[in-house]
C-alpha cells in the first residue's frame, strides 16, 4: 500500500520567468493530515496545482520532484486514482450541463447502478441526503451544497490521498463540524493521507497532525500542530495566530469541554 507522497523543492513561475512559488517541500503520509496555511495570494493553490501538473495556461513548473513511496512520478499519474482533489472554486470545477449523477458516472467508470449507489452514500456522508440532490445541475445547488458535492465526488474513488483547497469556506458550522468528523474517520478507518489548504485555524486545530505555513511563495515554518499553536517560531505564523486569537477573544467561555491541559 502507498504510504508516502512527497513534494520536494517545487517551483512555479510565469511564462516570463517571474517566480510565484519557490522551494516548496511538503510530505503527505498515510493516516496523517497536513494543513497548509498562509495569507491570500501566497502561492498555496499554485503549489498544489504545480505538484499535480495541473497549472493554468501561462504558468510553468520550474523544478521539483513529486514521488510516491520514493518513486518519482508525473502529476497526471496521480490525479484521480491516487490523489483525489478538491479545488478551491467548486463552481468552476463542475460541468454546468451535467447533473451530479452524471458527474459520478463519468468519474467512476463502473456500472451505472453501482456509481449511483456509491454517490448516494458519499452524499449522505457529507450531509446531502435529500434524494433530489443527485439529479440537480450545478446551477441549482447552493455554494455549500456544491462544495460538499465536490468532496463527495472526490471521496468515491477511494484514493489513498486527498488534497483539498479551502474545502470548508462555504460550509455552515454544523456542516463543517460534520466534515471534520468524516475526514477524521477516513484517516482512522482507511488511513487516508491528506493535505488541507485552509485559512480557518479552527480547522487546522481540530484536524491537522502537522501544519505548514507559507508566505511569499515559500514555506516559512512546518511544525506539529500543538507546537505550532503553543510556540510559533516564524513571525508570519505569530501574526496569523494573533489575528485568530483576536477574533476568538469574545467567545463564550467553553462549557464543560476539554480544558485538560495535556499540552504544556
Amino acid at each position, binding site marked *: 500500500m502507498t504510504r508516502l507522497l512527497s513534494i520536494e523543492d517545487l517551483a512555479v513561475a510565469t511564462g516570463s520567468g517571474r517566480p510565484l512559488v519557490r522551494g516548496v517541500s511538503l510530505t503527505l503520509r498515510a493516516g496523517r493530515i497536513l494543513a497548509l496555511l498562509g*495569507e491570500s495570494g501566497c502561492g498555496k493553490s499554485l503549489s498544489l496545482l504545480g505538484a499535480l501538473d495541473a497549472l493554468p495556461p501561462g504558468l510553468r513548473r520550474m523544478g521539483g520532484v513529486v514521488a510516491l513511496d520514493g518513486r518519482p512520478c508525473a502529476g497526471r499519474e496521480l490525479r484521480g486514482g491516487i490523489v483525489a482533489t478538491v479545488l478551491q472554486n467548486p463552481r468552476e470545477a463542475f460541468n454546468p450541463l451535467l447533473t451530479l449523477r452524471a458527474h459520478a458516472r463519468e468519474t467512476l467508470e463502473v456500472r451505472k447502478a453501482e456509481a449511483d449507489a456509491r454517490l448516494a452514500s458519499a452524499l449522505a456522508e457529507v450531509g446531502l441526503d435529500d434524494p433530489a440532490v443527485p439529479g440537480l445541475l450545478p446551477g441549482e445547488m447552493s*455554494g455549500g451544497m456544491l462544495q*460538499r458535492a465536490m468532496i463527495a465526488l472526490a471521496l468515491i474513488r477511494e484514493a489513498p490521498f486527498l488534497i483539498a483547497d479551502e474545502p470548508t469556506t462555504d460550509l*455552515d*458550522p454544523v456542516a463543517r463540524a460534520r466534515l471534520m468528523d468524516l475526514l477524521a474517520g477516513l484517516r482512522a478507518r482507511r488511513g487516508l493521507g491528506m493535505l488541507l489548504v485552509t485559512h*480557518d485555524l479552527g480547522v487546522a*486545530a*481540530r484536524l491537522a497532525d502537522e501544519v505548514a505555513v507559507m508566505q511569499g511563495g515559500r514555506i516559512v515554518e512546518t511544525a506539529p500542530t500543538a507546537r505550532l499553536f503553543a510556540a510559533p517560531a516564524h513571525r508570519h505564523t505569530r501574526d496569523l495566530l494573533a489575528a485568530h486569537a483576536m477574533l476568538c477573544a469574545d467567545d463564550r467561555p*467553553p462549557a464543560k469541554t476539554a*480544558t485538560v491541559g495535556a499540552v504544556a
Partner: protein
Amino acid sequence: MTLLALEGVGKSYRPGHPVLRGLDLAVRDGEWLGLLGQSGCGKSTLARIALGLERPDTGAVLYRGRPLAGLRGAEARQARRDLQLVFQSAAVSLNPRLTAGASIAEPLRNFEPLDRRGRAARVAELLEMVGLRPEDAGKLPGQFSGGQLQRICIARALAPTPRLIVMDEAVSSLDLVGQARLLDLLAGLRRSLGTACLFITHEIRLARRFCDRVAVMDGGRIVEEGPAAGIESMARHPAARALFDAVLPPLPPGMAAR
C-alpha cells in the same frame, strides 16, 4: 429609517419545495446586519431577490418604502446604483475575458460622469482600497488567487458608492488578517458615508465582531434576530443553537484558551 425591506417574501424553484416562506427582514440606513443559516437554507436566494435580480413568487421588496419592482426611470437607476451585491463565487461572477480594471470600471461607466483618465484613476484607487495594486488592473481573472478575486468583486461593488452592499460569503477565501482588514475598510466607509451592509456569512465570529444585529434563517424564514453582541447566548431557536454550538474551538484539543 428603513433602507431595504423584504415583506412576506416567498420563493420556490421546485413545486412543493419552497426555499423562502413568507420571509420578513429589514435593513436600516447605515446598519450592518449579519445573516446566518444552514447551507442551502436560502441566503443567496434572498440576496438575489433583495437586489431585484430575481422576482419573488409572493411578497415584495421595498426600497426606502417603495416597491423595488415598481421603480422606473431615474429612480430605478438610482436603486440599481445604491444596492450592490458581492456574489458568493467570485470566480464565476467575473467575466473571464475582461481585465480586473475593466470589470471594476463597468459600474463607473454606467453611473459616474468620468472620462477615461478619471475612471482609470478611480479604478486604481479602488484596487488599493481593497488591498491590490494599481498595476493589477491589467490582469485577467485567471491570473489571480481565490482571495484576490474576492477583493476585485468587492472593489467592483464599491465603485458606484452604494448605500447598501450585500456581501454573500464575500470574504470567505481570505485569510484572517485579510478579512479583518477588508471589513475594517467597510466599517470606515460606514463611518464616513453611512454605507449599510447585509453580511451573509458562516463565520459567526466575524458577524459578532462587525455587525450591529444578527438574523438567523431556517425553514425559509427568519427564526432569530437580535443584537450581535451576545447573540450566541441569547439564541433560543434550535436551528440557531445548532449553528452556534457547532463552531470549532480555536485551539487544538487539549490546549486551553488563555
